[in-house]
């Protein structure tokens, strides 16, 4: 059995750490044994810790560090990757992009594991067309709450309870997912600016379907809600050649910088964020067609700065990401003005359109809009303002993303995820003794 080390764990937002017994994963057999010998605090699998809140930490529990089980293979013939759960999307991309393939769904960071991508049912800039990550998984293996190993496919209810199930149905040990063919490691990007929030939203509504990838950055400081929409498709070899790119299949993203270890609280404030937003808006042209960008610049701009979460200082930060149906699109503007009202500076405010949701009862995305804002945790009045937004959002049939959530109440969660009861029934068959637990599951009384 591997060494067990009491370790303080937190999410990417660095708020509210707890101490768990951390064990490195080395085989499905060892994981089954850990599950069978779990103490009363339970077991939880953890990947690369990019969930912002408390999803991948579990006070007092045995937390299994899955990143040591990270092998994967590309099967070019049937265009799929079979990976151990701890394999990172970063390593997978380094292997498959030069060979002409790309992951079916890419989050805003590639520093995540395959297991985490399934557990959070991650989405990307192509959700409106391709759905979330779970829709592209063809098979997964999982160790349930009794230590038994299962192979699940999309025909199984247990498969869909695991997709978006935040690690609470079992430990995913491996998975197979489809990959898409690409001609180059570049994206052709069209950019347009919207003068205000209405303008941005109507432009997205009108033309997002014409592109595989699309997202908008919103100036959260300006009361207009102006923004920059970027949309893209994988570039062909001809498009790369026209742009003078020498090696269109090369892919080697590098770290540009590492954030300093000690940043005083308040370094990100209304004024610095205002300056950033102004500059970012002006940096982009009113309209630009066919710009060629590297995959890493288009999908994972922040991955170039290691440990960028430190810039929020010692209080940490939270990301508030919600979804609302089209009919409640007005809540996007209301959320932005509410955050402006309390002086919450967010320099990463992202708006996107979602396509239809999938069969997973706890999957986050469903048709409509999603807005994500990074907020320093120390702002006075933040809790109350977000509670008010939570209530408005869930009343309109919207919800918060569990991979980002770190503060909603259990009552709000139950209201916002009406299929929770259905999910619990399946979970109870997979984990009758309730071995799997996280700080998130305790906070939300899942």
């Amino acid at each position, binding site marked *: 059995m591997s060494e067990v080390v*009491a370790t*303080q764990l937190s999410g990417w*937002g660095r*708020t*509210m*750490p*707890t*101490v*768990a017994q951390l064990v490195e994963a080395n085989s499905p057999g060892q994981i089954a044994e850990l599950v069978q010998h779990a103490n009363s*605090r339970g077991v939880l699998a953890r990947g690369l810790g990019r969930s912002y*809140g*408390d999803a991948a930490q*579990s*006070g*007092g*529990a045995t937390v299994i560090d899955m990143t040591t089980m990270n092998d994967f293979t590309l099967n070019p013939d049937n265009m799929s990757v079979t990976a151990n759960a701890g394999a990172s999307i970063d390593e997978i991309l380094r292997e498959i992009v030069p060979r002409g393939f790309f992951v079916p769904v890419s989050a805003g960071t590639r520093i995540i594991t395959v297991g985490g991508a399934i557990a959070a049912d991650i989405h990307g800039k192509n959700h409106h067309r391709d759905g979330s990550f779970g829709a592209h998984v063809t098979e997964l293996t999982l160790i349930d709450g009794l230590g038994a190993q299962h192979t699940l496919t999309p025909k199984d209810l247990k498969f869909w309870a695991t997709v978006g199930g935040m690690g609470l149905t079992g430990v995913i040990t491996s998975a197979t997912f489809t990959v898409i063919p690409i001609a180059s490691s570049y994206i052709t990007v069209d950019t347009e600016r919207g003068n205000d929030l209405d303008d941005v939203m109507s432009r997205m509504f009108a033309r997002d379907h014409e592109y595989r990838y699309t997202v908008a950055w919103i100036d959260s400081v300006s009361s207009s809600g102006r923004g920059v929409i970027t949309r893209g498709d994988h570039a062909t070899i001809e498009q790369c050649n026209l742009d003078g790119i020498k090696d269109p299949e090369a892919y080697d993203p590098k770290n540009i910088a590492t954030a300093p270890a000690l940043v005083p609280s308040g370094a990100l404030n209304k004024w610095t964020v205002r300056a950033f937003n102004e500059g970012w808006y002006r940096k982009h042209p009113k309209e630009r067609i066919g710009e060629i960008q590297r995959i890493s610049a288009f999908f994972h701009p922040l991955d170039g700065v290691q440990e960028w979460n430190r810039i929020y200082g010692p209080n*940490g930060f*939270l990301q508030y990401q919600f979804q609302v149906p089209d009919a409640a699109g007005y809540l996007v503007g209301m959320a932005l003005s509410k955050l402006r009202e309390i002086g919450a500076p967010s320099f990463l405010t992202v708006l996107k359109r979602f396509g239809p949701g999938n069969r997973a009862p706890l999957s986050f995305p469903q048709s409509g809009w999603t807005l994500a804002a990074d907020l320093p*945790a120390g702002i006075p009045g*933040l*809790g*109350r303002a977000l*509670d008010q937004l939570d209530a408005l959002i869930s009343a309109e049939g919207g919800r918060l993303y569990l991979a980002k959530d*770190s*503060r909603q*109440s*259990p009552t709000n969660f139950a209201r916002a995820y009406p299929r929770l009861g259905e999910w619990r029934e399946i979970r109870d068959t997979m984990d009758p003794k309730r071995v799997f637990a996280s*700080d998130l599951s*305790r*906070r939300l*009384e899942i």
Partner: protein
Amino acid sequence: MLDALGDPQSVLVLGGTSEIALATIKEMPRNRLRRVLLAGRPSESLDLAVKQLQALNIAGVEAIEFDAKNTETHGGIIDAAFDGSDIDIVILAFGLLGDQMTAEADPTHAVEIATVNYTGSVSAGLHVARRLKNQGHGALVVLSSVAGDRARRTNFVYGSTKAGLDAFAQGLDAALAGTGAHVLIVRPGFVRTRMTSHLPEAPMTTNPEDVAKIIVTALKKGKSAVYAPGPLRFVMAGLKALPKPIFRKLPN
């Protein structure tokens, strides 16, 4: 569980009628609280405390039976509280001021003060610490007192129990380092409560609500000790440094 903003869902008060503890609960965001346990000897004032919090729409408020002097029952009571759900914050708030002159004349009274304030706290504190360590998070708030900083003629029996409690709590915090749990020692000066209503007020007197605000802020900042009001820290540092002949001449 604490949320990202440091607001708790569950609180256990040992000494459930403590005005400082109740004010501290009222200072927490009410819609976050899911479970508030007020532990104390069954009494009208304990029932009243429960009703008071329920009237504020705080969810899950209940009284549980607890007697600081019955140390052999502490383990079972604290285990039952933690078995129900994780507890984010435990406030160790029971205490007896007693009467100095009675205590000097009748040492059994002094022993009672010592038993409740020191022995009871050591017992309950160790049981709580064991469960906080087990859950990997949580805070134990210990209501100490400036009376423990330097023994005074007029209240040294009480003061000595608080001095012992304070030292115990400091050590317990050290013992919990690295477990995810920690201790917050609160050293109030004169607070206007039932306990002190018969006494003349001292300089820098505060209300339970003032102490509550200091506690909630200190918990969010993860501090290990605070005075209430804050500047008392400097006053007490000065008093501790005073030569004995001058200290003894100070007015009480």
